C-alpha cells in the first residue's frame, strides 16, 4: 500500500491503530486479572481491575474523538473510511469487554470469603482462557489485517458457548444439591455469562476486521450456541 500524499493523515491512521492495540492489550490484561482475582480470592487485585477499567473508558473516549475529528477533516474514502469506522466499532466492543472484566472482578469481591467449588472453578478458568485466546487472536487479526484469522475467531466462538452451556447445567445441579450453594453459584453464573459476552464482543470485532479487510460483511449467520435461555433442569 502506498503512503498518503498527506503525511499527517498517514500518521493519524497509524496512531489510531496504536491506540486500538494498547486498548486491546489493556482489556486482555483486565480479563486475565479478573480471573486471577476470582481464583486467588484476592480483593486487592479485584479492586485494581475495577480501577483500571477507567483507563479502558478513557481510551474509548480518546479514540472516538480522534475518529470524529478525522471524519470531519479528512473525509476518508474506501479503505481509509473502513479503517476509521472499524476503529470506532472495535473501541466500543473493547470498552464493553473492559466492563465485563470489571463485573467479574466485582463478583470476585463478593465471593472472596466463600469456599469455591473446584470443578466449577476449573470450568470458569477454561472459559476465560479460551476467551483470552480469542481476544488475542482477533487483535492480531486486526493488526495484521488478516480476514481469515478473523473468520477463524468468529467460528471458534461456538466453543465458548458450548462451555457456557455445560457450566450453566453444572451450576443448576450444584444449586439443587444444597440451597446454601445458591449464593456462590449465582455469582459464578453471572461471571460465566460475562465471559460468554466477552466472546460475543470478540466475535463482533472479528466481523469488523473481516469488513475492514474484504470490504463486505460476513455472509453467514453467526453460530449462536448459547442455549441457556431455553434450558431448565426440573427439581422434581
Amino acid at each position: 500500500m502506498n503512503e498518503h500524499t498527506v503525511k499527517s493523515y498517514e500518521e493519524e491512521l497509524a496512531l489510531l491503530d496504536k491506540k486500538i492495540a494498547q486498548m486491546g492489550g489493556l482489556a486482555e490484561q483486565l480479563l486475565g486479572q479478573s480471573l486471577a482475582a476470582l481464583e486467588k480470592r484476592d480483593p486487592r487485585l479485584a479492586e485494581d481491575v475495577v480501577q483500571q477499567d477507567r483507563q479502558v473508558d478513557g481510551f474509548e473516549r480518546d479514540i472516538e474523538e480522534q475518529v470524529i475529528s478525522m471524519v470531519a477533516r479528512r473525509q476518508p474514502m474506501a479503505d481509509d473510511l473502513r479503517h476509521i469506522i472499524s476503529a470506532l466499532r472495535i473501541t466500543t466492543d473493547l470498552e464493553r469487554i473492559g466492563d465485563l472484566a470489571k463485573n467479574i472482578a466485582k463478583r470476585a469481591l463478593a465471593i472472596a470469603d466463600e469456599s469455591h467449588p473446584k470443578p466449577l472453578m476449573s470450568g470458569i478458568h477454561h472459559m476465560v482462557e479460551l476467551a483470552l485466546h480469542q481476544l488475542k487472536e482477533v487483535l492480531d487479526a486486526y493488526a495484521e489485517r488478516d480476514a481469515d484469522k478473523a473468520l477463524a475467531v468468529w467460528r471458534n466462538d461456538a466453543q465458548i458457548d458450548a462451555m457456557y452451556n455445560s457450566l450453566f447445567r453444572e451450576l443448576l445441579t450444584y444449586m439443587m444439591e444444597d440451597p446454601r450453594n445458591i449464593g456462590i453459584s449465582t455469582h459464578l453464573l453471572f461471571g460465566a455469562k460475562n465471559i460468554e459476552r466477552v466472546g460475543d464482543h470478540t466475535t463482533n470485532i472479528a466481523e469488523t476486521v473481516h469488513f475492514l479487510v474484504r470490504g463486505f460483511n460476513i455472509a453467514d449467520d453467526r453460530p449462536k450456541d448459547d442455549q441457556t435461555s431455553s434450558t431448565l433442569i426440573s427439581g422434581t
Partner: protein
Amino acid sequence: MLKMPTLDVQTNAAAAGTETKVFANDVNVYYGEKHALQNVNVNIPDRAVMAFIGPSGCGKSTFLRCINRMNDTIPIARVTGKIVIDDQDIYDKSLDVVQLRARVGMVFQKPNPFPKSIYENVAYGPRIHGLTHSKTDLDEVVQSSLEKAGLWSEVKDRLDEPGTGMSGGQQQRLCIARAIAVNPEVILMDEPCSALDPIATAKIEELIDELRQNFCIIIVTHSMQQAARVSQRTAFFHLGTLVEEGPTTEIFTNPKDKRTQDYITGRFG
C-alpha cells in the same frame, strides 16, 4: 419547509439508469502523436448522473468532449471507435453536428454567459434552432428554463440586465438554463463548480439532483466528495484509460482496482 431525510441512496442508485443513454465502444483519441485516450468502453445510463474522476491529464475531459464532438474543433485531434446515443452513431458522416450539440448540452468550468441580457442568453438557443414560433412561446421557454435552473425568482425582474453582471454562481446557473433551453437529452458538465464558492456549489449540486429526473448528466469533477454526493455511477480514468466504473457507493467504499483506491484515498504517487 422541513424535508424528511431520505435513506434510499442505494435504491435510488439501483432505480436510476436502468436504460443506457450513451454507449461507448473502443473509443480512442489521438492529439497528433499523443494517444490521449485508449479503448474506452462504457454504458452511461439515462436519467442519472455519471461522474468522471481522475488526476489531471487522465483523459476524462477528453472523453467528455467526445460525447458532443467538441474534439472536432481541435485540428490535430482524431477520434476512433464508436459512440452511440439512443441507437444513433454520433460519428456517422451524415450526422449534423449542430443538431447533435443541441441534443448534448454542455456547461463549462468557468461560467461563460454571452455578453447579452439574461433573457437573450437563454432565448438564443431555442431561437437559432427554431424551437419556438412566437414571442409567447419563447417567453415560456425562457421562464421554464430559468425555473428549472433555480434562477427564475432571482432574475425575473431584471431579465434585461446583462448576464455577465450576475454573481459567479448565478452565471453558472444561467449557463445551465441556457443549456436546457434547447431541450437536450444529455448534459455534459466539465468541472461546473470549481470556480464557485461552497454555497453556489451546493445550489448547483441541488440543481443537478433535480435535473437528473429528466436528463442524462455526465459530470467531470476534481472533487471526489462532489462525485460521491451527486452521482449514481462513477468512472475512474487514469493515464488515458478507464480503470474502473461502477455504482458510486461501491467506488467510494470498496473500489476493486488498486489505482482507484490509491487515487480516491489520496495516495497517488
